[in-house]
């Protein structure tokens, strides 16, 4: 029995190790396949030159910039809404409405990106064209709200789970001291659910950074460096999807592995940065 138990505990560790190794495996894989480009000393030009394969320039800086801008913008839109909605679900809404909202959120988590983007193509794009007053209506500003809509369910589910784990006795204590619902939110729920808030936001950000379809269909995909949020721009995942179909042995194709690598590194770096100010979100109790 003892052996079996030790065995099972090893199982847990192995599972984690496998998952961790998979992450590293992707990294190595991207490195190996992107190697030709890196070897040719294109690395720097990757970040400085424009994208013009016909002239042998494979720069992806505009895409990198657009990716980060878009992800941040959609997080800026999505985070407050997620927070508000999850608080509504846990603390403010009556029971019935709460169930309804949770159902709604969970349903939204399963709506394909394609559907969002497709509907937005007919509904949001003309609207944005009129609002912006120039250009096609395909822009970062158009993609951001749709992307926000996409990441909100993920975040809300995480946030709500976090809030619900907050000790009931603490909530009751605050009630007994004459606190209002809003005070309950500010003083008990938010601090109590901090790890869940951080984790949910990180996941949401990752999702926004990595989404292909929304930016592919709504952001316009022009390869120029966006000079404003109302400009058409191309994100890295969309770029990968667009270049994907070119010749296998071409430099273009190799460069998308460099894109993948860059995406990977940028997310990794951001995760590291988020850990710097405080301690790791996991060490919080």
């Amino acid at each position, binding site marked *: 029995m003892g052996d079996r138990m030790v065995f*099972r*505990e090893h199982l*847990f*560790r192995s*599972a*984690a190790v*496998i*998952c961790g190794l*998979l992450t*590293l495996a*992707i990294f190595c*894989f991207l490195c190996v396949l992107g190697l030709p480009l890196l070897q040719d000393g294109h690395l720097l030009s990757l970040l400085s030159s424009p994208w013009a394969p016909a002239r042998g320039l494979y720069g992806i800086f505009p895409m990198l910039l657009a990716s980060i801008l878009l992800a941040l913008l959609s997080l800026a839109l999505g985070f407050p809404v*997620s927070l*508000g*909605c999850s608080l*509504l*679900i846990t*603390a403010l*809404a009556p029971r019935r409405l709460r169930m309804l909202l949770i159902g*709604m959120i*969970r*349903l*939204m*988590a*399963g*709506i*394909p*990106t*394609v*559907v969002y983007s*497709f*509907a937005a193509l*007919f509904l949001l794009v003309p609207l944005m064209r009129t609002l912006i007053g120039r250009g096609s209506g395909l822009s970062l500003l158009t993609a951001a709200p749709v992307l926000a809509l996409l990441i*909100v369910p*993920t975040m809300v*589910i*995480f946030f709500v*789970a976090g809030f619900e*784990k*907050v*000790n009931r006795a603490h909530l009751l204590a605050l009630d007994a001291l004459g606190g209002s*619902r*809003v005070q309950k939110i500010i003083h008990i729920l938010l601090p109590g659910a901090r790890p*869940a808030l951080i*984790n949910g936001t990180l*996941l949401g950000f*990752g999702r926004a*950074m*990595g989404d*292909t*379809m929304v930016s592919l269909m709504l952001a316009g995909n022009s390869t120029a460096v966006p000079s404003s949020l109302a400009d058409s721009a191309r994100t890295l*995942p969309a770029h990968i999807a667009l270049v*994907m179909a070119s010749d296998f042995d071409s430099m273009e194709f190799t460069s998308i592995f460099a894109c993948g690598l860059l*995406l*990977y590194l940028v*997310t*990794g770096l*951001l995760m590291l940065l988020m850990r710097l100010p405080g301690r*790791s979100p996991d*060490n919080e109790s």
Partner: protein
Amino acid sequence: MTGQRKITEITVTWFCWLSGLLLLAALVILVGYLIRRGGPVLGLSLLFGDTPPLDALLLRKHVFDGLYPALAGTLLLIIGAMVLAIPLGIASGIYMAEYAGGRTKAVFSLLFDILAGIPSIVVGLAGLSITIFLHRIFGERIMPCLLISCLALAYLVLPYLIRTTQVALESIDPVVRRTAPALGASRLQNIGRVLLPHSLPAIIGGIILATGRCAEDTAVIMLTGAVASAGIPRSLLDQYEALPFYIYYISAQYTSPDELATGFGAALLLLLLCSALLVLALVLQRRLTIFLLYR
């Protein structure tokens, strides 16, 4: 009550209600639009084309103009991916919450966050390249197929499962956590009989999230085996059709308004499928909780 605090109260309350309303409005607009465009085509013929439904269900005849193969493909995809991902994800989550500590935990934590940040298209790219690689080594039998897609999707949703499990376990009240050991439970028993059942709702929430992600992802399956027409897959090594890919394909390649309408019909169908899975998960959660805690 001071004025400033009153303002805070009102702002926070309004803010929360507005967010909820905003989401609700977005969903209603979206679903309403889908129904307006796709509702009329919804029906048996959307599913089975002109093949008799019974023959199609019993796999006696191919379905050509219907979404039945895509529906079946999506379901198989979800089941396959979840069967692979759930054990691995939950086990890793348990390891993170209950066993890992200090440096190890920090490293794994970072890795999983990065894992969550890997774009699906990169996962698809990796899946495709690895398949090509394997194909060169092992020859004809390895092709982009259902199995590869399931593997890639499972990989994609792992972080959701890991994180929900971990967060759920970590936020259990220390008193509850300490009770079973005091009664002579081993660590494993404590996890299996108290901690996990206790966090079941949260974990199911994660599973629902992951399922939704499997059901909707297009970028991965596009590169690893989903095709425009294949019929019902007979084995894991077959190619398959899938609803999200179909929607993408139609939106990209429709030639007539009728075809576009089937695209909207497919979107509605996918929505229905997701709702059905959701209800199933909730029923399962209730049953499971009762079974684990009250029997």
